[in-house]
């Protein structure tokens, strides 16, 4: 075992020397994420899925993505410098405190649907999960079309196949032996949009990344449309309407939604 380790070390040194001599070393970009929340949360599974996919992309571009997992209790005292973004699956109070303390660092909300967090318009808060109002609007649109229908509104569904959702569901289930849900989709999307942005821009500074995400993002969340953020920090996205565990429609509901765009769902600007 020891011998193997030594051999591995020698091999590593040789590789490093080789890479350094070819100049490849200088180009490696390394990026660190922090996740705050329970370590058995579905959101974390999504985060890890996104991380694996980011590293798969990174291997072609000399980019490496790492993850630190921090419990909610330790978050207040943890040093968050050195992270490109903080991914959270926490309660609303913890989220508000964290995002206010970490101004300039993108703080992703993966789990909280509360509309007050959107109207608060915290500059560095990025809400991947749809707000309660977005879901309510989606249901209202659907009811206009199908009166008497009691649908659920969801960000994601394991049976979703369109827009290559099928592929994401398939590889998530293969890796995690469980189905992707709203929280794990949000975790995946937050990491993937960050690494896609880093890959394109080579940005490694959190404040620069925040600016890029809020103003220039074009993200493929495997839900069809090109995704970007509202000024409230909410991610624009379609919502799935589900009845008896079956997808019955997508909102914006065609022919009903006004305007017929993603902004027919929820609050889209900071002005009240």
């Amino acid at each position, binding site marked *: 075992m020891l011998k193997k380790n030594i051999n591995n070390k020698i091999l590593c040194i040789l590789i490093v020397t080789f890479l350094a001599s070819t100049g490849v070393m200088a180009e490696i970009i390394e990026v660190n994420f922090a996740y705050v929340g329970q370590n058995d949360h579905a959101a974390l599974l999504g985060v890890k899925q996104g991380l694996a*996919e980011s590293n*798969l*992309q990174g291997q*072609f*571009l000399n980019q490496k993505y790492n993850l630190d997992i921090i419990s909610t209790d330790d978050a207040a005292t943890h040093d968050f410098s050195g992270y490109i973004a903080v991914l959270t699956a926490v309660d609303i109070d913890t989220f508000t405190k964290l995002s206010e303390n970490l101004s300039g660092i993108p703080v992703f909300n993966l789990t909280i649907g509360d509309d007050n967090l959107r109207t608060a318009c915290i500059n560095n808060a990025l809400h991947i999960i749809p707000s309660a109002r977005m879901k309510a609007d989606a249901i209202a649109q659907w009811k206009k079309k199908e009166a008497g229908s009691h649908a659920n509104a969801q960000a994601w569904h394991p049976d979703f196949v369109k827009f*290559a959702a099928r*592929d*994401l569901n*398939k*590889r998530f289930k*293969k890796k995690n032996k469980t189905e992707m849900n709203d929280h794990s989709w949000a975790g995946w999307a937050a990491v993937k949009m960050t690494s*896609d942005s880093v*890959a*394109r821009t080579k940005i490694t500074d959190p404040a620069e990344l925040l600016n890029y995400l809020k103003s220039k993002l*074009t*993200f*493929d969340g*495997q839900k069809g*449309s*090109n995704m970007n953020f509202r000024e409230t920090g909410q991610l624009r996205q379609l919502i799935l309407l589900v009845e008896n565990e079956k997808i019955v429609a997508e909102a914006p509901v065609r022919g009903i939604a006004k305007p017929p765009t993603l902004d027919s769902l929820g609050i889209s600007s900071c002005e009240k």
Partner: protein
Amino acid sequence: MKLFWIPLLVLLFIFNTAFADPTGRIFVTNEKGDSISVINGSSLDVEATINVGDRPRGIGLSPDGNELYIAVSEENKIKVVDPKSLKILREFEAGSDPETFAVHPNGNIYISNEDEAKATVFDPKTGKQLAEIRVGLEPEGVAISPDGKRVIITSESTNMLHVIKASENTIENNILVGSRPRAATFTQSGDIAYATAEISGEVVKVDINSGKILKTGSTGDSKSKPKDVLLSKDEKVIYVAGGRANEVVVMDANTLEIIKGIPVGKRVWGLAISKDGKRVFSTNGVSGTVSVIDTDKNVVIKTIEVGKFPWGVVIND
């Protein structure tokens, strides 16, 4: 007297097999119809529908035009069909979830295996896998330069064109493009390639030798989700399948400005151009039709009903 005929017959036989007349047929895979539609090249009517198995998508012809290959995705197989008799000749295992493929001038097939993040190379004569190339997530589009030197694989969820050196089957360059690159095509010289990015609604023109993007052009409004792309015979324009924009977009190959949108059917994905460059065929998935475009006027001259969710199209001309 009898002996005199033998060499002549042998000669005739060789001539017939080596230079067999192409059927002129247009072949279309019906993703949800589990079949291929066979369109007569002169009448432009469907003359036959053949059941080929679960979820046929990619379709292509051998360099001599004597064999038709079909990627039957859910069965993880390539099926080989005789374009004349329309009989399934044989089949072989083609890795997990084969989606799109392209046939190399040497006869080998380059396949994107969508759920395995790899491309595989098969010899369709023996059904043997010759090579495997690790690529990004959800590999889809496959394009091969006319001289056979390079292969492009697009990986949709990794937003890249992987440029592969065909002689070694290794990646020589990775070119980051817009979101969800779906298809690519080379110019005759092989120096330039065009690729579509579905989610960002773009076409990029790439210098293959340097790996640099020369130009990016938008394919239209937000409904436009481009998929297949091909060049006109004179290489002056490109034809882009506009996806949910329900049109084939004609763009200037140099400036990437839109010249015209040709309305076809709903969810247009597959495109093929005839060897003489006079006809472009598009598969319109949701409509269940194929549109025939006259490239002189860039108008649809016929719409043909095919099976459920037509996906890919090739011409045996």
